[in-house]
């Protein structure tokens, strides 16, 4: 017998407050497009502008943005970086960021501060034809090299932010390793600083020609506690040629006033390898798209991610492992810890194209929730169009195990320290993937700072 329904209709009303606080749009115009002397570079700007005009602030109704709400961005407040601005209080990055991150001497370093750029590269590498410089230098000295690679891997059509960077981006970092050149000493670059009510746009291009090898550590950072909203959008384009090998570490430690957006993609050709490590602890909000395109047979990509949020931070990493050729291998492990009211999102996809047989794809995301109000979304995904493949994935969100904690406490280790030990242990599998002690130490320091009483 079915219970009769309540005769009074229940009216459900939803209060859509989000419309009230809907973000304003950016105010950049055609006049803000950075003028280019070289025709082909001007064409890139022009095309990016055409795309940019058609794009609005992404809304949570779009699948990729469902968990990252930009309604409070208030984009209209941001102007473009003014190059005459000389009174930025934090002109140079702090010592801990400048310190070499690897055990060996650095082969080169670029610091792109707000109004200053420093470029260092060993003579030895210059002679070998290595290019490690800024876009502004290339515009003066070798615009055709920049034009050959810019916007080829990350295209403006991918969204508002990449279109913005390509139309209005002021500067960038360019690394080019010629055929057969192998560099064991690491290269280090830093994008430093974020100014209130200002959009900082950065662009990184890495090209490894066939049979070359390089190690590159790139950071995006700004002072930890500054007032007022700041904005950063970045593009990272990586091309790994046949049988080339890149060890790439990216560290993001932007201040908590920064809205941060990045679109990154590595294209890996036959037998090429990328070992890609991400460390993210900063920003108010981050939406990062990272794609690994394994386009050549036998291409390999290993992606390791470390994120640690606190306060009201929101970090969203969207990864895509695209197996577009047979015998390709990808291995992704992202681990995150969350404190306070922070929120993380990891959304991953392994895509195997038709015909990409004998591929091996793996993805795992592990989250450790350290506070009652912290929240992690972990969404793995597989889309497989070939039949002879091996793809596995796993996603977990957990808390500190009470028995583990009791065990450590019972040995006299105070609660805070016991928690820190468990968090360090949790991140250990990521540490094991990082071949540089300096980077490992930096991650340890991140954990210490975040877990400090």
């Amino acid at each position, binding site marked *: 017998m079915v219970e009769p329904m309540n005769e009074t209709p229940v009216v459900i009303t939803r209060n859509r407050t989000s419309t009230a606080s809907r973000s304003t749009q950016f105010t950049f115009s055609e006049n803000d497009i950075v003028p280019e002397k070289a025709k082909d570079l001007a064409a890139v700007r022009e095309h990016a502008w055409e795309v940019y005009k058609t794009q609005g602030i992404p809304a949570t109704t779009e699948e990729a943005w469902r968990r990252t709400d930009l309604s409070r961005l208030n984009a209209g407040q941001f102007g473009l970086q003014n190059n005459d601005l000389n009174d930025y209080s934090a002109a140079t990055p702090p010592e801990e960021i400048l310190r070499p991150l690897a055990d060996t001497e650095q082969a080169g370093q670029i610091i792109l501060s707000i109004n200053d750029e420093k470029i260092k590269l060993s003579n030895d590498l210059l002679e070998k034809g290595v290019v490690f410089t800024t876009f502004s230098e290339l515009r003066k000295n070798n615009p055709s090299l920049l034009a050959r690679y810019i916007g080829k891997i990350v295209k403006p059509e991918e969204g508002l932010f990449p279109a913005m960077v390509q139309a209005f981006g002021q500067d960038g970092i360019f690394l080019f390793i010629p055929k057969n050149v192998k560099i064991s000493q690491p290269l280090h670059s830093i994008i430093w600083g974020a100014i209130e009510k200002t959009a900082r746009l950065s662009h990184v291009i890495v090209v490894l020609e066939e049979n070359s090898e390089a190690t590159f550590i790139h950071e995006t950072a700004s002072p930890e506690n500054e007032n007022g909203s700041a904005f950063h959008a970045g593009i990272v384009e990586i091309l790994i040629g046949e049988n080339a090998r890149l060890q790439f570490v990216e560290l993001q430690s932007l201040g908590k006033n920064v809205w941060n957006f990045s679109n990154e993609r590595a294209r890996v050709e036959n037998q090429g390898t990328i070992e890609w490590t991400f460390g993210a602890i900063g920003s108010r909000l981050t939406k990062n798209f990272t794609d690994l395109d394994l386009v050549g047979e036998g291409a390999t990509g290993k992606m390791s991610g470390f994120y640690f949020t606190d306060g009201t931070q929101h970090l969203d990493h969207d990864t895509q492992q695209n197996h577009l050729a047979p015998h390709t291998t990808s291995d992704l492990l992202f681990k995150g810890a969350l404190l306070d009211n922070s929120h993380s999102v990891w959304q991953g996809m392994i895509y195997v194209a038709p015909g990409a047989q004998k591929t091996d794809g793996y993805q795992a995301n592990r989250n450790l929730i350290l506070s009652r109000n912290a929240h992690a979304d972990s969404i793995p995904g597989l889309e497989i169009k070939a039949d002879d493949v091996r793809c596995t994935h796993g996603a977990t969100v957990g808390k500190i*195990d*009470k*028995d*583990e904690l*009791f*065990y*450590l*406490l*019972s*040995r*006299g*280790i*105070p*609660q805070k*320290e*016991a928690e820190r*030990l*468990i968090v*360090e*242990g*949790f*991140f*250990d*599998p990521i540490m094991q993937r990082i071949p540089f002690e300096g980077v490992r130490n930096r991650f340890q320091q991140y954990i210490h700072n975040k877990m400090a009483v």
Partner: protein
Amino acid sequence: MSELVIKNLHVQIENKPILKGLNLTLPQGEVHAIMGPNGTGKSTLANTLMGHPSYQVTEGDILFDGKSLLNLSPAERSHLGIFLAFQYPVSIPGVTVANFLRTAVNAHRKAANPDDKGIPILEFRKIMKEKMEMLKVDSAFAGRYLNEGFSGGEKKRAEVLQMAMLQPSIAILDETDSGLDIDALRIVSEGVNTLRNKELGVLVITHYQRILNYIQPDIVHVMMDGRIVESGGPDLALDLEEHGYTWVREKLENGTSA
């Protein structure tokens, strides 16, 4: 000489009473055994002594050196010299034995002296190496993740290693013999015996008499239904081994009905 005094201890877990008025006095320098059938509250006692948050003391007290432990955190109890060798030591992924031991040793030093800067690494390594040799533990042990993938014997040896490093005043061995083959049991027991001294009181909690062949107790207590119901010399353990617990239970029932 300090002693651990348990007075009329009542403990419940999730509103279910487990310990129902347990009394026991363990002086430093003595070894006491607690034997009893399964489900009688032996592990509850061990965890309560260490301050496990799931075990709620509803009545009675636990005193060490005249001071009540009840309001102290597990870490504070450890600093006072209470040590629990767990029946089922959990693994701590990603934390090596050496890192864990050094953190624990430093926590003890800091509790004793807030200005302590930590044990020098060389001194720590030397002490750890000595203790590991004493327990016949392979040196690679120090670099392994704590209890992760350890065999039953390795886990128990790791517990005794921690005990050796922390040098407690009162050690509670909760079913340290369970899951050990005879060789492992001998090594673990020898380790405990090496640590026996006038400043150490040991409470051996066990279901079987076997471990008491190796670690000779001064006093044997029988625990049943949340209380100590019988105490005696080492011979009591042999009686229990031979005759089981039935006679104690009968004696207890006759006693209570009388």
